[in-house]
């Protein structure tokens, strides 16, 4: 059912990468929901199709690796929960960034909106804040991984010498 030749640590790194992509897609979906409040009803209806497409892409990208992780855990291969890896560290940093952004957004919402929060439904604000948080996690993850690519290439070059 699954390719078992892939080392578990390597798979776990790939899983975290897919989770970051998944969070980015979820953020896009929530963002599209938010845009729906400001556009004409026919455009909003079209945006729902875009959201459905994003949900399908999310399932295709994340579900296989998620199922494989469950499969490996079921087989008691606890090593796949490897907490000590560079990618895990990057993901933890990205999560902290996302949490900080959500906290700042909540504080800003409290201060800025005040009593005039009746203009839009509460759902809009919740989705916007969640979307920003997820976006912060995924973008932070991508940036940190991109920065580490240079080190990876440099290391490979020296490896070849």
């Amino acid at each position, binding site marked *: 059912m699954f390719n078992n030749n892939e080392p578990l640590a390597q798979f776990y790194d790939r899983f975290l990468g897919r989770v970051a992509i998944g969070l980015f897609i979820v953020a896009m979906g929530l963002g599209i929901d938010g845009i729906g409040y400001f556009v004409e009803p026919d455009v909003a209806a079209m945006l729902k199709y875009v959201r459905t497409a994003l949900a399908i892409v999310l399932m295709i990208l994340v579900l296989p690796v998620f199922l494989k992780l469950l499969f490996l855990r079921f087989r008691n291969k606890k090593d796949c929960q490897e907490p000590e890896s560079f*990618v895990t560290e990057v993901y933890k940093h990205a999560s902290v960034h996302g949490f900080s952004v959500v906290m700042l957004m909540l504080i800003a919402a409290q201060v800025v909106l005040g009593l005039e929060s009746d203009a839009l439904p509460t759902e809009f604000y919740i989705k916007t804040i969640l979307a920003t948080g997820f976006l912060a996690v995924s973008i932070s993850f991508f940036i940190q991984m991109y920065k580490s690519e240079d*080190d990876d290439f440099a290391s490979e070059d020296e*490896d070849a010498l």
Partner: protein
Amino acid sequence: MSSELDNRIRVFRAEHRISQGELANAIGVSRKTISTIEVGRYVPSTVIALKLARFFNASVEEIFSLANSK
């Protein structure tokens, strides 16, 4: 993610003639983890340091040292 820790993993790998991927598989981490440790971007946990030392049959101090200790 610190420049304070020097390491000699590349030297040990060269002596043992193994690639980053082979070393990663041997100690149960990803290749990315090994490459980022080598360049000093990622400071490994004690467990990883001990696994590296055991694999190379060396002490942790022979592989890792503080940058200002030279």
